[in-house]
């Protein structure tokens, strides 16, 4: 860790001084980013990500996890004995969260287009059979209607869990969400609220969804004070990178379940965006009990001291790959990665909640590393990265060693044949890290 910011700022932008800086830096324990890759190179993909929790013990020790099934009258317990986990992918974890909400909260209903037969992404599979069509039901095709209907239910103190079939189709509901849900509490002097409303929607790209099945619209909601917006990512800190205070580890479909239960029970309306490519590809051992992971809190997945990478959703995995590539660049592109940078300690943060975002964690990190790369799939202009970059440059101005860099989708719609060049893939993130480190 670079302690004094002035020292960090003094270091000039040359490779030579960067080397010196690295030597002077107190190292964190070895990170995933510097782990030796298997022979022949190693690019983690979602399936092989070291951050997915594959054992019961690992799963039960997910950071920030808060068991919601304990008797609050009794003494707080950290005992994990008797808790079980089950292998789930992301859509199964989302389903599990809704099943718990429906079981424990008689007022809860789940609705949206095609949800009764399980939803196009299978997130509501079997819920209608289990809880009855009165509580889990299809709606006609009307997103503005779904949002408004959910607001009405929530305004009566009940719990509405609504699905918009694709985030790309949330715009007809924009008025209801931005003008109504977000302002409900404020405009009624706190007499009416819609805290019971949660809107779920699959978001982000899959590689062939083109204009209308690839969007990441979180930025549009960022100015809607009163709403909370959460994106589920699926990562985790490998045990050996933990700080001493974080005793155990955890996370992924795990994140989905815990964050969704928090969202459902949060006293504010929440938009919950689920990166759809992860529905099947991310698999973890997920605790079967009721638990929450708090909103508004980022999670540091890899600790480092030289550069902070901030992201959320699917790109978390591209960032993991890029961090591996920085330490162990594939032969073909090794010449673009100067030797000294390969030892750089990269910090990776999953923002998890977009609004309100965890400014403290990110500021603390960037003050320490002096460098920030923000990665998101949405377009650059007006994207969430713009807001974060502006805030961070204010808070960390004297500690920054390089301009805040954004790796994002281009300012174009998502053209289908060109998606591989649109999505911020690992080589773009790698290049941004090298550029930022060498500034």
């Amino acid at each position, binding site marked *: 860790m670079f302690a004094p910011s002035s020292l960090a700022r003094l270091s000039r932008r040359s490779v030579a001084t960067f080397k010196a800086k690295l030597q002077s830096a107190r190292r964190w324990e070895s990170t995933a980013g510097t782990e030796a890759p298997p022979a022949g190179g190693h690019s983690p993909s979602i399936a092989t990500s070291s951050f997915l929790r594959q054992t019961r013990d690992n799963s039960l020790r997910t950071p920030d996890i808060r068991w919601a099934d304990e008797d609050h009258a009794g003494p707080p317990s950290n005992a994990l004995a008797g808790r079980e986990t089950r292998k789930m992918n992301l859509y199964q974890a989302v389903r599990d969260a809704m099943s718990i909400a429906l079981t424990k909260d008689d007022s809860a209903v789940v609705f949206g287009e095609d949800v009764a037969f399980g939803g196009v992404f299978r997130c509501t599979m079997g819920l209608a059979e289990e809880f009855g069509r009165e509580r889990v039901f299809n709606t006609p*095709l009307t997103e503005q209607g779904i949002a408004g209907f959910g607001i009405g239910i929530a305004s009566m103190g009940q719990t509405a869990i609504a699905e918009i079939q694709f985030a790309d189709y949330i715009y*007809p509901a924009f008025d209801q969400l931005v003008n109504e849900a977000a302002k409900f509490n404020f405009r009624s002097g706190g007499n009416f609220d819609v805290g019971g409303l949660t809107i779920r929607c699959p978001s982000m790209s899959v*590689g062939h969804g083109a204009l209308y099945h690839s969007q990441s619209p979180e930025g549009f909601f960022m100015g809607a004070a009163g709403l909370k917006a959460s994106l589920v990512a699926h990562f985790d800190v490998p045990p050996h990178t933990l700080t001493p205070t974080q005793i155990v580890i955890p996370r992924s479909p795990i994140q989905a379940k815990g964050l969704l239960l928090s969202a459902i029970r949060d006293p504010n309306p929440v938009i919950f965006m689920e990166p759809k490519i992860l*529905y099947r590809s991310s698999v973890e051992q997920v605790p079967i009990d009721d638990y929450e992971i708090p909103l508004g809190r980022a999670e540091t997945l890899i600790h480092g001291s030289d550069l902070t990478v901030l992201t959320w959703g699917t790109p978390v995995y591209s960032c993991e790959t890029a961090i591996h590539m920085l330490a162990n660049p*594939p032969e073909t592109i090794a010449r673009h990665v100067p030797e000294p940078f390969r030892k750089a300690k990269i910090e990776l943060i999953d923002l998890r909640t977009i609004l309100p975002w965890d400014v403290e964690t990110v500021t603390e990190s960037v003050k320490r590393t002096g460098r920030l790369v923000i990665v998101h799939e949405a377009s650059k202009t007006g994207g969430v990265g713009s807001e974060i970059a502006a805030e961070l440059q204010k808070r960390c101005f004297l500690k920054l060693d390089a301009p805040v860099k954004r790796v994002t989708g281009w300012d174009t719609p998502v053209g289908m044949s060109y998606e591989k060049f649109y999505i911020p*893939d690992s080589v773009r993130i790698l290049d941004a890290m090298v550029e930022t480190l060498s500034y």
Partner: protein
Amino acid sequence: MFRSALLRSQIHRQSRNYVRATSQVAAEPYGHLPTSQSPITPKMNFINSVTPDGTQIPTYRVLDGVGELLDGAELPEIDEAFARRIYENMMQIPVIDNLLNNVQRQGKISFYMTAHGEEATVIGSAAALADNDEILGQYREMGALLWRGYGLDDVMAQCFGNAEDASTKGKQMPVHFNSKEHHFHAISSPLATQIPQAAGVGFAIKRDPARRGKNCAAVYFGEGAASEGDFHAGMLLASTIPSPTLFIARNNGFAISTPSTEQYHGDGIAARGPGYGMDTLRVDGNDVLAVLSGVREARRRCVEQGRGVLVEAMTYRYVPQLPQLPNIHPPSISTFSLLTPTSTSSVGHHSTSDDSFAYRPRQEVEDRKRIDNPIARFRKFLEARKWWDDKEEDELKDRLKGEVMRAFKRHETMQRHEVREMFEGVYRGEEPWNIREQREELKALLQKYGKDWEPWRSELKKHKGEGKELMQ
């Protein structure tokens, strides 16, 4: 005091007028509401499109299930050549659908939507329109484009998104066609957005002296899309402004998995037309002559009145088509012909991402296919008039399969547009700095990594010029 006396006398005067007006109509002994023709009645009469005895808006049909004229039905004006053209166009759709559906299952294209079971609705309505009426489709109306002469090469180029795809330049998903030449506006995945736009298109036609009274806007949508706010906005606008807009609802009974019984409680989409003051007709969408005749008359009224008209075509989505769910590996079908319908490809699933047998019984689908096949019904009509026979049927099938297969082969391996195309068309006219700079950014990245980074190197090979236009 003075004011209220004045008011009283005004009311008195007005009510005398009403009394005088109603005295001419004995059936309305209590007169009318002021400013409307609504008669006053002492009885509470609730009205509803859902009636106590279950009667519904009738469905207009011309041909019965075996292709014979219904008693009392009038045959629309149709000669042999036109009838054969309709039939051939209807026959072409499933040939293309079977191929592209199978090709999608092989992972060669990302997505496809068939029109199985809706051939009569799409072709019958297209045949009833003038070829330069503006069409705003939802996504299942490829047949209307083909009717107007859009070629198989154009279809394949768009679905493969290759360098010959002039309609979307590889930017949109398959079946998102457009063609200015054929007056066919661009398909957009969000549902129902085209409906209020169609009211605007109709209005613009009315403002254009060259097209006023000659053309209309024809907008297609499913019964599911009719639940969107945009449907109601479009109907209201075309009726109120007014604008010559022909609303063609394809009621195939399902919106993806959701049956129409969960889509609306009222009497279908047709029941909504009168609410907006529109002439409305429900037709048997599996009877191509009823569709032809019904849409012709609807179009005549639409153009003449300059106001919206609604046609609801009752059909059945025989098989499936949403984007393919991620990470679902398509089953291998290399062992049988691409042109053969698969067990799941001859009734309409919503899309290739959908298996409708998860939410409706296979038997129901099979029954509908057997007894209510729009193509078979029209064929019987043609045969009865000696306009068609088995030999011609076989020849047509062979010809269509050959043409479709040839177009497919030609386009299957063709390269895509140049990579730089991805930045084109965001804006017309002067390009803003952000787009320009971002293209430069990608250019620098490709120059640096394009040859060395395997995922990009292999991807670049799929594009015309292999990225050289950016890398040099």
